């Protein structure tokens, strides 16, 4: 198995963090890299979106949103009963795992691109859709449907969060401008994509390493859940991808999205809506376990899963 350079950058960050190197990227650099990644993903999707009919897209969108509602509902009882977690903690972690990680998606896209495997280029639309349902379910699981949740403020947080604004904004710009008009900015967003992603993963490796300490404290259950649940979710995503008629690449991406856990949008929303949930637990699982697992092991596995599903499904 040959390792992608971007994965090696992640391993470098991870190793540097674990060995307590002084390596540290300024917060502003991380912000800048993530802005470029989010816009690039949005723009690419938007260009493709212009060529799709709503008739084919709409059923897929509905199906994917349903999956976004379903995954946290499945995760919650597991966390409550097997993990014996408090209600708020279980709900918060469930929301993290129902939502998605753009970083993981970007690595999966790069993985497919380096092997010249094609996929439905409008996948970023489904990515955007998957960010939100889990947040709503997470809040409901924690609170019940109660009047004291400030839905207006929360709506603001969910729909105007950084990743949604940049992804949706990119989609709209790509859709409105078209491929030729985007050429002048393509140097930054498309040509540099892999380099930006490599630097981003270097930082993510450092961040993941910083979670290892709390993993030691919070034990074996989070480790098991952080690997087992993504594997289950990947099968759900893969089967759904097959059902809604995605190609092998698209099926693999949907499986990856299902398997990934949010570490930007959901933590921010949960901090506001469910403050009593301990953010260390959810971030340890999503960043310390699931993110590295998906980057290092999961993505090639989900590709095999997609091939298998398409083979058996005709």
């Amino acid at each position: 198995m040959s390792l992608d350079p971007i994965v090696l950058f992640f391993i470098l960050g991870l190793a540097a963090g674990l060995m307590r190197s002084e390596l540290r990227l300024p917060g502003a650099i991380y912000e800048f890299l993530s802005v470029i990644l989010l816009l690039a993903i949005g723009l690419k999707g938007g260009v493709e979106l212009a060529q799709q009919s709503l008739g084919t897209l709409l059923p897929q969108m509905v199906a994917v949103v349903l999956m976004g509602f379903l995954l946290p509902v499945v995760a919650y009882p597991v966390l409550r009963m097997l993990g014996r977690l408090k209600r708020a903690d279980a709900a918060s972690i469930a929301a993290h795992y129902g939502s998605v990680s753009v970083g993981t998606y970007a690595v999966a896209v790069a993985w497919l691109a380096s092997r010249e495997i094609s996929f439905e280029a409008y996948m970023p639309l489904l990515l955007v859709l998957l960010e939100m349902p889990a947040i709503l379910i997470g809040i409901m699981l924690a609170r019940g449907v109660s009047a004291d949740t400030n839905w207006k403020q929360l709506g603001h947080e969910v729909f105007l969060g950084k990743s949604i604004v940049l992804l949706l904004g990119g989609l709209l710009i790509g859709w409105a401008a078209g491929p030729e008009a985007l050429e002048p900015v393509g140097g930054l967003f498309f040509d540099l994509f892999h380099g930006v992603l490599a630097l981003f993963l270097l930082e993510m490796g450092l961040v993941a390493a910083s979670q290892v300490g709390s993993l030691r404290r919070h034990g074996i259950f989070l480790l098991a859940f952080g690997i087992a649940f993504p594997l289950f979710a990947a099968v759900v995503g893969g089967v759904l991808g097959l059902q809604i008629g995605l190609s092998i690449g698209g099926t693999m991406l949907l499986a990856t999205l299902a398997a990934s856990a949010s570490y930007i949008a959901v933590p921010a929303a949960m901090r506001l809506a469910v403050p009593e949930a301990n953010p260390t637990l959810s971030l340890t699982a999503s960043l310390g376990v699931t993110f590295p697992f998906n980057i290092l092991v999961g993505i090639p596995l989900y590709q095999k899963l997609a091939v298998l599903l398409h083979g058996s499904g005709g």
Partner: protein
Amino acid sequence: MHADPRKLVTIITEAAIERRLLEDLKRLGAHGYTVSDARGEGTRGIRSAGWEGSSNIRIEVVCDEATAEAMGRHLKAHYYAHYAMIMYFSDVGVLRPEKF
């Protein structure tokens, strides 16, 4: 040089709650505020500001004593239990008292 006495309220907390907190402070009578990025370590672990999830902010408000007290009570009641937050007060002198 005569300087009028005021209180400097310094709050160090999670960046995640910045907007909500600033709305509260304005409602409680802050005429202005300064926000800067911060990092450090405390009972909630290392807040290294490497990415959004671990970033801290420092909010500074200069105000009269009554406002400072109101802020202290409000933050203690609504934020202390669940958020990484410390708050402290200092005596400062200002040259344009009407601003605070």
